[in-house]
């Protein structure tokens, strides 16, 4: 985003100014279509140019898709793909007489696709108005207009004493304020070697130190709750069922880096997350853990929750910042990194919500106890989740370093239809054939087999899965979600998608050039990462892909 737009935002009041995306979302709820008059009013209210408002309104899926009085969104994310969502989509479209992405002429019913509602354990999933339903009998319930909310599975832990599924109780912050101080807290975090859980595995302490080192009137803590990975419902669990732990982690980050304001970005596909976090914020304020002079110290900290509007790339940290500012969630070239110039131009720590949820334990029990959770592997523990193809899908807290086969068999009960392959860590993660399932679940061993730990989702494909259809599915996701900024991803993913959706066999040489352009040329890990599962498929299932070897 341009410096001048940052300046305009600052002039309008920065974080206090009316947020353009929030205004657009509100209008959209009321009016079903965003008319030019309304956009012009929003421009006036936010102090932003009309063109800028138009640009935002055409970026986010929630603002773009046509909406009827009854708005149905079927998930076609990877877990739902594995459970037959594409076929279900065609059935629903046929029965209701409305094409996906369209609205009936009378304005009554609209049908849209959505990427992941966080019910991957009961896939396929669907959102009918405000109700989120999933699982067997879904078609019948949609047609009878009798959808009902589905409950989340109870989380479980392999740890003797759970860390991430134990409810937050603010004891870590209390210890930091009374016994540690910011420097000692940073030292503990550094010794704990906490690695980011949002995908890249970057050391959290280094980010915190960098933000602290940059001189500025204010600093911000941003919790990334955008969990866009289809197949993942880890952050959903944390935000909806253990929000205090995230808030405590944010407050600790604030204390360590000298920030007094935090923001969480939740996604609109998880409508319960924002209210749950807001209720937890109110509780914490009442208990004196958020607000002015926390627990009698001179540390003050506030948290505000903002919600996105349908964009995968909004989870990328520079796009996330733009989204929080209410702008188009496109990626910005780094440097500058957010720790130097982030939200509203100020030094900002961006951490995944699960990363932050580790901080209270470290503050309370120290780095040594933390490292002991996963002997001989990456310190700490990890939340993982299994999709509906498993016999016992659900959410687990596990130590690092266990073989995937143990996790898939013992925790999730294996795959009744016979396991063909798993995709780990979201759409940008490689695909591991069943034969390699003895790979340990940890950053480096997974990277060695062309996969990644990513955010920790494990999506199984059973023997019936057509790997060429899977390639087309992933590329379609990539192309639809591309932010459109850099050329290799903007054009390359469209072309790659066309190659696999068409009837012609993709030509090997062209595909190799396309993948190289994506991997080496893309501005962010969306474009470069989508190449990883394609590489796996080419390596392990060349015949099924039906490549033209010319």
């Amino acid at each position, binding site marked *: 985003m*341009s*410096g*001048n*737009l940052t300046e*305009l935002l600052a002039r309008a009041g920065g974080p206090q100014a009316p947020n353009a995306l929030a205004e657009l979302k509100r209008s959209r709820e009321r009016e079903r279509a965003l008319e*030019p008059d309304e*956009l*012009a009013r929003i421009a006036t209210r936010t102090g932003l*140019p*009309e*063109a*800028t*408002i*138009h*640009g935002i309104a*055409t*970026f986010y899926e929630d603002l773009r898709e046509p909406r009827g009085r009854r708005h149905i969104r079927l998930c076609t994310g990877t877990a739902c793909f594995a459970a037959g969502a594409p076929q279900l989509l065609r059935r629903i479209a046929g029965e209701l007489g409305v094409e996906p992405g369209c609205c009936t002429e009378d304005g009554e019913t609209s049908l849209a696709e959505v990427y992941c509602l966080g019910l991957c354990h009961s896939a396929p999933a669907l959102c009918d108005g405000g109700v989120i339903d999933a699982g067997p009998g879904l078609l019948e319930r949609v047609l009878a207009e009798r959808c009902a909310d589905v409950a989340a599975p109870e989380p479980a832990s392999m740890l003797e004493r759970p860390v991430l599924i134990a409810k937050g109780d603010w004891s870590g912050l209390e210890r930091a304020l009374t016994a540690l101080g910011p420097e000692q807290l940073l030292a503990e975090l550094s010794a704990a070697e906490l690695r980011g859980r949002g995908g890249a595995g970057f050391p959290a302490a280094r980010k915190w130190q960098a933000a602290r080192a940059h001189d500025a009137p204010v600093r911000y803590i941003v919790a990334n709750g955008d969990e866009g990975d289809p197949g993942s419902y880890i952050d959903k669990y944390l935000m909806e069922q253990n929000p205090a732990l995230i808030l405590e982690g944010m407050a600790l980050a604030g204390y360590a880096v000298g920030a007094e304001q935090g923001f969480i970005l939740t996604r609109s596909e998880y409508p319960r997350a924002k209210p749950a976090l807001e209720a937890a914020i109110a509780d914490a304020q009442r208990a004196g853990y958020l607000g002015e002079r926390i627990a009698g110290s001179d540390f003050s900290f506030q948290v505000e929750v903002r919600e996105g509007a349908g*964009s995968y790339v909004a989870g990328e940290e520079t796009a996330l910042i733009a989204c929080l500012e209410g702008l*188009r969630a*496109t990626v910005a*070239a780094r*440097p500058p990194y957010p720790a130097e110039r982030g939200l509203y131009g100020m030094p900002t720590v961006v951490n995944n919500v699960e990363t932050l949820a580790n901080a209270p334990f470290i503050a309370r029990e120290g780095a040594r106890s933390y490292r002991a959770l996963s002997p001989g592997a990456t310190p700490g523990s990890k939340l993982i989740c299994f999709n509906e193809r498993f016999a016992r899908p659900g959410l687990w807290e596990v130590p690092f370093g266990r073989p995937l086969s143990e996790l898939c068999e013992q925790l999730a009960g294996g795959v009744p239809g016979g396991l063909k392959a798993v995709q780990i860590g979201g759409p940008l993660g490689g695909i591991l054939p069943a034969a390699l399932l003895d790979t340990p679940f940890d950053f480096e061993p997974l990277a060695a087999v062309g996969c990644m730990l990513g955010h920790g989702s494990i999506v199984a494909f059973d023997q019936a899965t057509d790997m060429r259809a899977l390639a087309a599915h992933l590329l379609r996701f990539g*192309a*639809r*979600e*591309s*932010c*459109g*900024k*850099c*050329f*290799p991803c*903007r*054009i*390359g*993913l*469209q*072309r790659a998608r*066309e190659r696999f959706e068409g009837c012609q066999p993709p030509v090997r040489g*062209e595909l190799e*050039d*396309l993948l*190289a*352009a994506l*991997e*080496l*040329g*893309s*501005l962010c890990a969306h474009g470069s990462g989508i190449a990883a599962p394609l590489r796996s498929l080419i390596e392990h299932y060349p015949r099924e892909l039906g490549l033209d070897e010319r």
Partner: protein
Amino acid sequence: MSAERGEPIRAEQCDSVRVCLDGGWLEVGVGETILQAAERAGREIPTLCFDRRLAPFGACRLCLVGVQGAGAPLPACTTRCHDGMVVDTTDERARRVVRTVLELVLSELPGDPLPGSELDVLARRLGVARSRFAGRTHERRHDERHPYLLLESELCISCGRCVRICDELQGAFALTATGRGFDASIAAGLDSGFANSSCVSCGACAHTCPTGAIRERLDTL
């Protein structure tokens, strides 16, 4: 002195750094990008989204170069030089990506690039005449409501130069990027055309546009 011990000189300690460009060493100012250094050395690096009047954007990726020690090619326009950096503008991996990206760009247009446009000249210079990547192209959409400015959306490659020059140089904020992914484009005002936007008719967008998607009308001269 840290330099004597063979450690890199920290940026604060001096106002210039030395970089090696295709085998020759040169001195560049602290904070200068590889593109600026190359220009000074008289080396031409292809660019499409770059305009020296604007902040670097890093979108087209045509300026990719090899940098010793970096895992992948780096964009010359957004990468700052550091002392001892070894840059190779002929890096094979970078050249391969650049050719592919240029082919991709040609593939999004419904026809050949506008003769004489920056894109046309660049494609000829790099010897990329046609694209292997046929597929969907941008829909024909013309805005001819403004007396002097013409927008032909199907020629737009979303380099963002028009939007940025309107914002950064003119301060008029008449333009925006629209949509996303392959459907990304640009629009004036609330997609209401230049004539019905905060456009001040300065023509900066037409001047910077590398494809002629926005250009001055000849029929009204």
